[in-house]
């Protein structure tokens, strides 16, 4: 359902517009723009190194985020505003960050990243500088 694209199409998509050169970083295995409520992926990008079923992965990630929000709402009413990180044993990390949508959808930027925690720190620093508003343009 979501539009899935590989490296050569990156620049013309919303993910390409926002993440730009970062998509060519070998540490980025996959990226997606996910609707939190439906679990649908609005856009997915998979590098040639990544053979995941991204439709399935993004549905699971939306579910993960929903658990993080709902289960701990009494304890953390503001929610996981800085996002979730799940670090798997094989040095692969899933980053999920909420994205502000002026049209009222609840969207997540999902990144599947390879590498050490130190590398992850640096990546997160780069991500903080990105212009996420281009992810949420509407129809024209």
């Amino acid at each position, binding site marked *: *359902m*979501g*539009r899935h694209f590989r490296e050569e199409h990156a620049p013309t998509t919303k993910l390409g517009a926002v993440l730009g050169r970062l998509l060519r970083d070998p540490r980025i295995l996959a990226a997606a723009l996910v*609707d*939190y*409520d*439906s679990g*649908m*992926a*609005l*856009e997915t990008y998979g590098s040639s190194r990544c053979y995941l079923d991204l439709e399935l992965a993004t549905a699971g990630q939306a579910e993960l985020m929903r658990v993080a*929000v*709902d289960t701990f*709402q009494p304890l953390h*009413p*503001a*929610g996981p*505003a800085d996002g979730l990180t799940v670090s798997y044993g094989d040095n692969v990390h899933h980053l999920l960050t*909420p994205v*502000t*949508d*002026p*049209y*009222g*959808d*609840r969207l997540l930027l999902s990144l599947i990243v390879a590498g050490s925690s130190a590398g992850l720190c640096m990546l997160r620093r780069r991500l903080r500088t990105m212009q996420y508003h281009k992810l949420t343009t*509407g*129809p*024209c």
Partner: protein
Amino acid sequence: MSNIEQALDMAANIKGAFAVALVDYDSGMTLGSRGGSAEFDLDVAAPGNSDVVRSKLDVIQKLAIRETIEDILITLNTQYHLIRLIRGQSNEKLFFYLALNRAQANLAMARRDLRIIEENFYLSNPAVAGNQVRGGHSVDGQSFFPSNSIQR
């Protein structure tokens, strides 16, 4: 340009869209359309899909579910059909009908775009003036994604 024409133009612009109509599901009549053809006859699709909408609303009523239908998504072999009901007064029974080519379209994105088009159309209706902006989701009461609650 009227709101109907503007909304139809925007819907027709959705990637993969090959036909769109604004339909009154009470009468089955089309208030406007784009892209209909001999292969895809909107004059047949409009009253037919009005039946779909009325059937579903009927089931919901019989189940005593006190909720509105926001959209209906139908997946065919090479097409998607999206029906987006338009909020309004009880005497206005309208929906957008959008037919998409499955190979070119992105269902998730089209659903989102059609939702935004419906919201714009609803808000630009003079009868609606003074109604509150819905913006965001009323599925649950929590305010996560709090920056979305800022009115546009």
